[in-house]
């Protein structure tokens, strides 16, 4: 992908982000009641409510409020948490990295396990391996994310006492939440890998590669898999976004101090500035992931690069 195309993609994404800001802006205004009171929290004094109303121009028409809100966002002002009175942006940084860590680890697990299951299933079609991989993939996509977490805790923390049941403090704390979340992704990746591999394995260039006497391993991994990658990459990108959403559940089960758990706490406390900020950050993540997926098309397929 050339720089010009990248820039064009970035600019094309701006309306999408604007739509999300409208959505987030609307949340507080759609809740019955005075937005200034809602943003200030249940226990704020009249003075604080008044200050907020003036600062965000909450007594003016909606379009003006929206412009004020956007200006604040551009300055990095996400408002103050009604629970802690601290700027939301400061609270969010650490938690964002935690969620990213969890989702990235889960994606790696999902791609490795799912990719392997998919390739094995496709290359040994209708064998016991294929059957097993298909069942594992089906169970993976059908298991509630939080329940696989509970079962893993039950097995590895309560019964075997191998791994901690929650909290943070190093690699061992990451294993169970990442596996729990990763299994869900693995199911989806396995299904997609299997179907696109099957499609590619039936093509003529694969037959040519076999005919010229290449080792089966080279045929599968160098020729077929590379050509099956585009739909797989799309699914992986999509899964990363879904896993960020799923992290809301995994973080709750494992007391993982990330953005998802913060969101649930904020909803319970009706901490609207925090809710708004987290949804915006999630949306920005999806935008970046989509962009990365687009860029990677060029990396895995020279034909896209040449366009």
């Amino acid at each position: 992908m050339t720089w010009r195309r990248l820039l064009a993609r970035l600019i094309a994404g701006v309306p999408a982000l604007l739509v999300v800001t409208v959505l987030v802006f609307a949340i507080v205004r759609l809740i019955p009641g005075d937005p200034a009171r809602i943003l200030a929290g249940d226990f704020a004094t009249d003075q604080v409510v008044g200050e907020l109303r003036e600062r965000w121009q909450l007594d003016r028409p909606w379009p003006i409020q929206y412009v004020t809100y956007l200006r604040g966002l551009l300055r990095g002002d996400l408002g103050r948490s009604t629970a802690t009175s601290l700027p939301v942006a400061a609270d969010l940084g650490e938690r964002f990295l935690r969620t990213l860590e969890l989702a990235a680890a889960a994606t790696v697990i999902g791609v490795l396990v799912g990719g392997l299951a998919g390739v094995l299933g496709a290359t040994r079609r209708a064998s016991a391996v294929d059957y097993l991989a298909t069942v594992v993939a089906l169970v993976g996509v059908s298991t509630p994310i939080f329940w696989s977490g509970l079962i893993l805790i039950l097995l590895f923390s309560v019964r075997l006492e191998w791994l901690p049941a929650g909290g943070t403090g190093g690699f061992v704390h990451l294993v169970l939440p990442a596996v729990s979340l990763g299994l869900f992704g693995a199911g989806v990746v396995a299904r997609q890998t299997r179907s696109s591999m099957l499609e590619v394995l039936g093509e003529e260039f694969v037959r040519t590669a076999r005919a010229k006497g290449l080792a089966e391993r080279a045929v599968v991994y160098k020729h077929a898999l590379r050509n099956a990658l585009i739909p797989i990459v799309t699914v992986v990108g999509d899964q990363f976004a879904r896993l960020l959403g799923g992290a809301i559940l995994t973080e709750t089960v494992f007391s993982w101090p990330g953005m998802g758990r913060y969101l649930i706490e904020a909803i319970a406390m009706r901490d609207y500035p925090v809710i708004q900020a987290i949804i915006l950050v999630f949306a920005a993540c999806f935008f970046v992931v989509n962009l990365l997926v687009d860029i990677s098309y060029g990396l895995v397929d020279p034909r896209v690069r040449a366009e």
Partner: protein
Amino acid sequence: MSVLLRHRGALVGAAIVLLLAVVALLAPWLAPHDPNAMRLGENLRPPSWAHPFGTDSLGRDVLSQVMFGARISLVIGGVSVGLALLGGVPIGLAAGFAGGWLDRLTMRLVDILVSFPTILLAIIVITIFGPGLRNAMIAIGIAQVPLYARLTRGAVLKVKALDYVLAARASGARESRVLWRHVVPNCLPPLLVQSTLFFATAILSAAYLGFLGLGAQPPTAEWGTMLSKARDFLRVAPHVSIFPGLTIMVTVIGLNLLGDGLRDVLDPRTRIA
């Protein structure tokens, strides 16, 4: 239909879904106990003949709760799918049939919303309307509207270009007749497949919301809500967490198998081979 009967996965899926439906319908007669009857002396009992799935922290029979939970899950699935169809299909039909700027604008908006995970969209809706089972169903339904709009539009575009639609137009049929007689009926198969799969997503999402305390509220015997409470007793009474979770998993497997089977039969081109 006969093709569907020969599809092993679809058969297993259909059997699971049928069983779920029967249990849900006949729950008051099939359940061994009153799902809400508390027996404080018998709390957190492990599985036994009297209580095959054990009892929960308030001494309620878990099997009876799971059975009555099936009713709630069926309602959740039905209502959410209904709402998503009601909202998404007209948007997709309008966009696909009219084309032009309406199509471009709607689809840009849909593309943005589709990139959001269902659970997050549902949480946004719940934030506005407040927690509860009814709002959870509305939230899940609304969260799927963009997907249905995109799917319907895709189907309309495909059907619109087919010869028999062109023939109907050429023979002077009015636009509304072309739409309702020729385009809509042919968009139904992909929608049926999607609805089966979405039924599973809806049940999962409702369980997620219930687990997070944003969906059905206790003492409603919704599967996710049950698990949210059971989690506190994971160490001493794992059975209270295991059985409702297992039920969700088997239900979702059934719906996914049925959906995949329907897709293979109705829409062979998109088959996951």
